[in-house]
């Protein structure tokens, strides 16, 4: 059995969902009530791969909402309790979705292996970052040419280059795709230098410097709140892959000629009988999902019960090959720009 730990995109959305499910007491409650609400195993469902194998999954809502991010202890408790529930339900491999893995990583929850009487078994969990990185890399490879961008001549900026996903995307694009030049953007200088060394190339730039030069921009960092991007300053065409969480890029870009694609999203070949992706506001909620969730499915299909994506900067090209191959075999495709694409100024 595989598991997915997720949450609503906002407090308001969470209340509405609770009301639809008939949990009026909780739906009417204020944020404090939600802060005390335990995680819930909301639904179980089957997924059948084109190989014929059927697996069963469970969706656990951590009852976390992004409004709780400023409450450190609450956020930590929500994640750990949801993980404990997954383990107690005997789920072999569970993906940490949305803010769950961000909280896990940023609040260093590895120090909190003991939850009440349970010792969390890390091998039961995956961040899903390997699949996300592979999907984003493939989205660059598939969609840039559709806009008339020749990657062998293109500059690709990776914003958040030193993160777990960002560094993996850089590795793939420089070694597998062979892009002309990588523009490396991140907050901290030392990890950027380390990455540049590891890659044997790439130019370190600030965001402002990188944007006007880039044919493709891969965002794997959330943007500063006040950032507005002026489309006129960008190259035309420009492919922007929004691989951060939450996905809020298209609202920030003024003007046209810029093509924004939701990054790290995959589509399954047939409908899945779940309701959970409505929470994530997917366009086709019966088929589309975060690649990190899909990684838990892939690991279950492959009977690979291990914390495949774990820690920071452990994503190798070999691991990306493995998960990418599994992704194709089991019927997933990456989300792409809808064809035919209007090629602006090409």
């Amino acid at each position: 059995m595989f598991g997915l730990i997720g949450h609503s995109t906002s407090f308001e959305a969470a209340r509405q969902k609770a009301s639809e499910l008939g949990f009026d007491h909780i739906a009417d409650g204020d944020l404090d009530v939600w802060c005390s609400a335990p995680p819930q195993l909301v639904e179980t469902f089957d997924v059948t791969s084109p190989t014929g194998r059927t697996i069963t999954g469970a969706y656990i809502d951590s009852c976390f909402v992004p409004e709780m991010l400023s409450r450190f202890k609450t956020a930590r408790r929500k994640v750990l309790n949801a993980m404990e529930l997954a383990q107690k339900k005997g789920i072999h491999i569970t993906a940490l979705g949305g803010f769950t893995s961000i909280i896990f990583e940023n609040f260093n929850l590895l120090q909190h292996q003991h939850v009440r009487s349970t010792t969390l078994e890390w091998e039961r969990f995956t961040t899903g970052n390997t699949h996300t990185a592979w999907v984003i890399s493939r989205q660059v490879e598939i969609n840039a040419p559709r806009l008339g961008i020749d990657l062998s001549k293109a500059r690709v900026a990776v914003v958040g280059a030193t993160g777990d996903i960002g560094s993996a995307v850089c590795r793939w694009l420089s070694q597998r795709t062979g892009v002309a030049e990588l523009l490396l953007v991140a907050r901290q200088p030392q990890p950027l230098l380390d990455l540049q060394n590891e890659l044997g190339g790439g130019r370190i730039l600030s965001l402002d410097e990188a944007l006007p030069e880039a044919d493709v921009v891969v965002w794997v960092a959330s943007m500063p709140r006040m950032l507005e991007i002026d489309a006129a300053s960008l190259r035309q065409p420009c492919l922007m892959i929004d691989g951060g969480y939450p996905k809020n890029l298209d609202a920030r870009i003024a003007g046209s000629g810029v093509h924004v694609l939701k990054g790290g999203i995959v589509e399954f070949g047939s409908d899945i009988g779940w309701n959970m992706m409505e929470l994530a506001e997917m366009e086709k909620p019966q088929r589309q999902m975060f690649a990190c969730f899909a990684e838990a499915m892939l690991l279950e299909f492959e009977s690979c019960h291990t914390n495949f994506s774990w820690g920071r900067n452990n994503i190798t090209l070999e691991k990306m090959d493995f998960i990418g191959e599994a992704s194709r075999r089991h019927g997933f495709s990456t989300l792409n720009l809808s064809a035919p694409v209007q090629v602006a100024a090409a």
Partner: protein
Amino acid sequence: MPTLETSEVAVLEDSMAAGSQLPDFTSEAYKDAYSRINAIVIEGEQEAHDNYIALGTLIPEQKDELARLARMELKHMKGFTSCGRNLGVEADLPFAKKFFAPLHGNFQAALQEGKVVTCLLIQALLIEAFAISAYHIYIPVADPFARKITEGVVKDEYTHLNYGQEWLKANFEASKDELMEANKANLPLIRSMLEQVAADAAVLQMEKEDLIEDFLIAYQEALSEIGFSSRDIARMAAAALAV
């Protein structure tokens, strides 16, 4: 998924650093709060002892097992009494008696009517789940002496929760309606007890939010083991979230 806005991370790291210190066990404020919390625990263990003995009259074939559980509770009571003594605190037992009075009354009424299901729900599910969650939250912020004692106690309390759980599971169909009814009548009492104790618990660095969530996790888990569906459980537990 990879990111979080910089400003938010900074806020969170600050609060992390602030939350890592143990309370001053010798301060007057701590001792004052401890006099009530400690009394609640002592009284709670005493009530538990008496309740298991009483349950033995309703389930005579398991009288010996229930007497064994009752003896464990008495041992806990002595352990917690020594925790208070160790800090030089006198437990405020009259306060604790008042604190338990409504739940005590409901248990006694059910006992008079021979309602074994209600009695089990009150003692073996609600009180035990309440105790387990509170002890788990107390352990990391307890003084070293109390910490050791509480760690020993919490293991036993699972045995007690398990006892009620197994009995109700074996008799689930016959007990279901009475459980729903008893939940409705008694869960709000637990919630109000949590509210009464919240300010004192906060002095001990035990937060209300944690207490409620952990209690609900333990309680929901027990209801699930007994045989209730997730939907039933969420509805039953909702009474604890609403004030």
